[in-house]
Structures are given as C-alpha cells and as structure tokens.
C-alpha cells in the first residue's frame, strides 16, 4: 500500500471511528463474583471518602489539610511544609506500586480502585435505580418527552447534582474543618450566606467535575484523557494477568440453531454478545487485548453465567496470562516483579522509619553575614550565628544549646520560646580565647536540646568558627 492510500485508509477507518459522535453506552447490569468484589471495594473507598472527613482525632479533625496554618493533620501525625519530601516520597511509592501491580495483575487499579470508576459506578447505580435496566433506559431515551420521561430524567438530575455537590462539599471539608463548613452551609440555606467565596468556588468546581466525569464522560475519560491507560501496556508482559477470551476454546463461534447442525466443529462461544453488552467501554473482548479494556471483569461474570446455562465449563473469558493461554505455565517471579517488589519494600520500610523518627525540632544555622568575626579584646574572638528554630511539635519549646569542637563561651536567650508550628530566630554568640585557636576556620558542632514532656530531643548541626589566626 502506498503512502496516500494508507492515509486515506486511516481516515476512513480508524479516525472517523475515533472522532465519531459518541453514542452513550448503556451497559447491562451484571452480577457475579468479580462484580461483588469490585462493588464492595468501590463502596468501601467511597465510604472512606465521605466518612473520614467527619472523624475527629483528639482535638482536631482526623484528616485535615489546613492550608492557612500550613499544616497537614493525618490522625496523630502533623506535617509541616518542611516535610514536603514525605509527600514526594509517597508519590514515588504510589507510582512504583502502580508499576508493580500492573506488571503483576494488569489494570487492577482501573477496575477496582480508580476514583473515576468508583464515581461512575455510583452514578450508573443511581441511573439504573431511577430509570430501570438497560432496556428501559434505551426505551426512555428514544421515547418523546412525556410526563414520565420528564419525571424520571428530572429526578435523576436532581439526585446526580445533589450527590455531586455533596462530593464537592466533602472535598472542601478536608481543607476547611467540615463541621464548621456544614454550619456555614446550613446558615446559608436559612438566608444569610455564610459560605466563603473560595469554599463556594471549590464546592461547585469539584461538584461539577464529578457530575461531568461520572455522569457523562464516564469511560471516555479512560479512553481519551487518562495517561495511565496509554502507557500501562509498557508494563505488561506475557505473564501479566489480563482479562482474556480463550480463542482455542471459543472459536468458531456459532449462534443458536446452527450449533445443532455442527456439534463437533462449533466452539464454546455461543455468540450471544452479552460480553459486549456489559462492557462499560463498549469493546468486544473476543478481539483480543485492547487498550480500552479497564479490567472490570464484567464480561467474565457475564460469560460464566452463560456458560453455566449452556452446560459448558466456566472461564471462556477469564483472568489469565498470555503464557497460560498458549503454553500452560505462568512465571510469577520475573526479574521486573522482583525488582519492583524489592524497591517498593525498601521505600516503604524507610518511609515508615523516617516518619517514626521525625524530629519535632529542625534547626538551620546561618552565620552572621556582615562580619566574619569580632575582636572583643586582645584575648577574645567572637562569632555570631543566627539560629532558625522550627518547632514541629505540638507545644511551645525552649532551648538549651551546647557546642563542641571548640573551647568557648556560648551566649543566647535561654527564655526564648517558640510556639508550635512557628519558626523562631535566635542570635547566638560564641566567644573563644584567641590563644587557644589553632586554625582560621575551625569546624564546630552545636547541639540544640529541647524538652518535650519528659523526653529530651536533641539536634546536632555543624558550623564553623572564624578567627584572624
């Protein structure tokens, strides 16, 4: 095929297909093992999202990202901007975890944990509850606007919108204490608008995003917008668990009465197309692995039911690997799995240890920029340091400072107190005898000690002492 024909062919087939007007996929409801697992997990995740915002821990909300005060509360832990590196670390772990699970078991994330999936599932459930099953929904779509259609569609919109707004409200509730937020919303309903402009903006913004993504865009987000959907196949190998149709068993697929005539030749697939009808992305899994497949396993559950009805063994469509499908053996421990698993465990353990050992005190020492040293008299040389003391604890701190590596007299404000979450500045002077100094720049080490309850916490910081030597 020459280039021009190729282009023409592409435009005729794939592109016009790709950009064809999207027809809403009405999925058929399916019940089965995987759907039960899936729905329980999604229900749990949504429950956590809506519920955790209301849980208190001690005197504050259990999970609160308090931006104005620049501190994140997560149960008993409080994170300051200085702890940003934990967040970066967490994100790296999340990415690595995604790689690991993708290599091991394909798109588990998409089918079982992605927020897009969770909210879409909730919205589909609401739609089905109000408009009925697939057939009823299709009928309603085609029917003219009569009273029934107005009532059902109207009710659906009201429930969708309320659910979306509640979602937006909950999101903002993780940034503004949710009980206060709830109070202001209630007040606003009773006449005087008490909700802040930015809270209003974010509730509407996130609510609208939920409404659009879960109500209308749905799996198109996975097809057109999700970067993970595009690169996940790079992490697949022939031992990755995927949703797969068993060609050898299923083909040639034969429908209905024809099967009776050709009993021997017919494959197990009865060509009922139910696997296509239940697919949220509207693909035909029998055509092989496609990037559209989000691994929801709806086709597995559906096909198993059909196989039961026609008295064939289950698993014509099943979770399997390419190797298992063709040679009969899956290798679980591959180099990439081992490497991902090791890296992930190391990062995870180090993360936990680092969090557990987080010091409630952080110190930065800046030398006085103006002068290197001061000559006090013939005998004494003085250096000035500026201590930046970050109190990452929960109570006010006072400090005791010692120095090693030099025989000198240290002077500072012993009553200086730094409030929790604040940064304190303290001038510290160190005076040494000139006769005892051997080099012009002497390495020294400060030890900063504070008492937290009965615990002594100390931080060591090195610095230098300058003299005219």
């Amino acid at each position, binding site marked *: 095929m020459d280039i*021009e024909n190729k282009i023409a062919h592409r435009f005729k087939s794939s*592109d*016009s297909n790709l*950009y064809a007007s999207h027809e809403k996929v009405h999925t058929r409801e399916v019940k089965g093992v995987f759907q039960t697992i899936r729905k329980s997990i999604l229900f749990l995740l949504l429950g956590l999202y809506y519920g955790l915002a209301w849980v208190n821990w001690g005197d504050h909300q259990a999970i609160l990202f308090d931006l104005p005060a*620049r501190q994140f509360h997560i149960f008993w832990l409080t994170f300051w*901007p200085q702890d940003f590196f934990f967040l970066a670390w967490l994100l790296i772990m999340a990415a690595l975890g995604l790689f690991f699970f993708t290599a091991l078991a394909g798109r588990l994330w998409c089918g079982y944990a992605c927020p897009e999936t969770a909210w879409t599932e909730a919205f589909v459930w609401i739609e089905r509850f109000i408009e009925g099953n697939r057939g009823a929904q299709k009928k309603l779509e085609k029917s003219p606007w009569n009273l029934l259609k107005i009532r059902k569609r109207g009710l659906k919109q009201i429930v969708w919108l309320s659910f979306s707004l509640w979602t937006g409200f909950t999101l903002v509730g993780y940034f503004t204490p949710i009980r206060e937020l709830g109070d202001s919303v209630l007040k606003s309903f009773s006449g005087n608008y008490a909700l802040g402009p*930015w809270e209003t903006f974010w509730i509407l913004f996130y609510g609208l995003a939920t409404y659009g993504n879960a109500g209308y865009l749905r799996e198109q987000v996975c097809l057109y917008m999700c970067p993970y959907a595009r690169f996940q196949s790079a992490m697949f190998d022939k031992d990755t668990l995927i949703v797969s149709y068993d060609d050898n068993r299923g083909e040639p697929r034969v429908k209905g009465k024809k099967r009776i005539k050709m009993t021997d030749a017919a494959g197990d697939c009865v060509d009922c197309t139910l696997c296509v009808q239940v697919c949220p992305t509207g693909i035909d899994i029998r055509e092989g692995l496609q990037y559209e497949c989000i691994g929801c396993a709806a086709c597995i559950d559906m096909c198993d039911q059909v196989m039961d009805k026609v008295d064939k063994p289950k698993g014509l469509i099943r979770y399997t690997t390419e190797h298992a499908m063709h040679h009969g053996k899956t290798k679980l421990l591959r180099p990439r799995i081992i490497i991902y698993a090791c890296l992930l465990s190391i990062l995870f353990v180090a993360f936990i240890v680092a969090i557990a050992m987080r010091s409630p005190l952080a110190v930065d020492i800046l030398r006085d920029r103006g002068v290197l040293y001061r000559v006090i008299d013939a005998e004494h040389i003085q250096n000035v340091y500026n201590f930046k003391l970050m109190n990452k604890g929960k109570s006010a701190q006072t400090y005791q400072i010692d120095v090693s590596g030099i025989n000198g007299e240290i002077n500072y404000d012993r009553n200086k107190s730094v409030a929790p979450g604040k940064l304190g500045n303290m001038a510290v002077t160190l005076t040494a005898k000139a006769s005892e100094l051997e080099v012009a720049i002497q390495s020294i080490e400060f030890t900063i000690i504070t008492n937290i309850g009965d615990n002594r916490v100390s931080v060591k910081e090195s610095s230098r002492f300058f003299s005219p030597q």
Partner: protein
Amino acid sequence: MIKTLISSLGKIVPEEELQAKVLWRSIGVMTWVSFMFSGIASMIFFATFDPISLGKLATFFINWSAQAMYTAGFLLFWLFGFSTTLGSVILLALPLSKRQRSLPE
C-alpha cells in the same frame, strides 16, 4: 477566534464536522493535562513558599486570605499550563497548505 482555533487544531482530519470534534477533544486533553500539572506545581511551589508572606513581598501589595492565594496560585498554574499545551498543539498541527498537499484527493 473559534474558527481559527478549529482550523488550526482540526487539521489532522479534513472534514469540517470532524474538525469540531478534534477541537473539543484537544480542549479536553489540554484542560486535563494542564490541570494535573498545575496540581503538582502548586504542591511544590506552596510547600516552598508561604503565599501570605509572598503577597507582602509582591511589587503590588496583595492582602488576600490564604485560601484566595492558594486558589489563585492553582488557577494561575493551570492557565500557564494550558497556554503551553495550547501552543504545542497549535504548532504540532501542520499548516493547512501542507496538509492538503499530503492528503489524497
């Protein structure tokens, strides 16, 4: 304005009707990609700088609430990100004359 956008973004596919779809898809992708990067950029930026003290240092003194500053920062990053992706998308779509030459009659 919209017409220029359509013609520059939609050049991948010749038909007028399809162009509009490419436009909407491009806008969707640009909005979404810049949204994600705005989130990351805001996290890194605001973990490093306190918006309240930044407002005090600004050439034009800004005395907004922390929430307003964070929101404005996020939206600004989003706008920057969107402009960048918009530029890339417009330049990546070949000029119309070139496209017509490479297309079959």
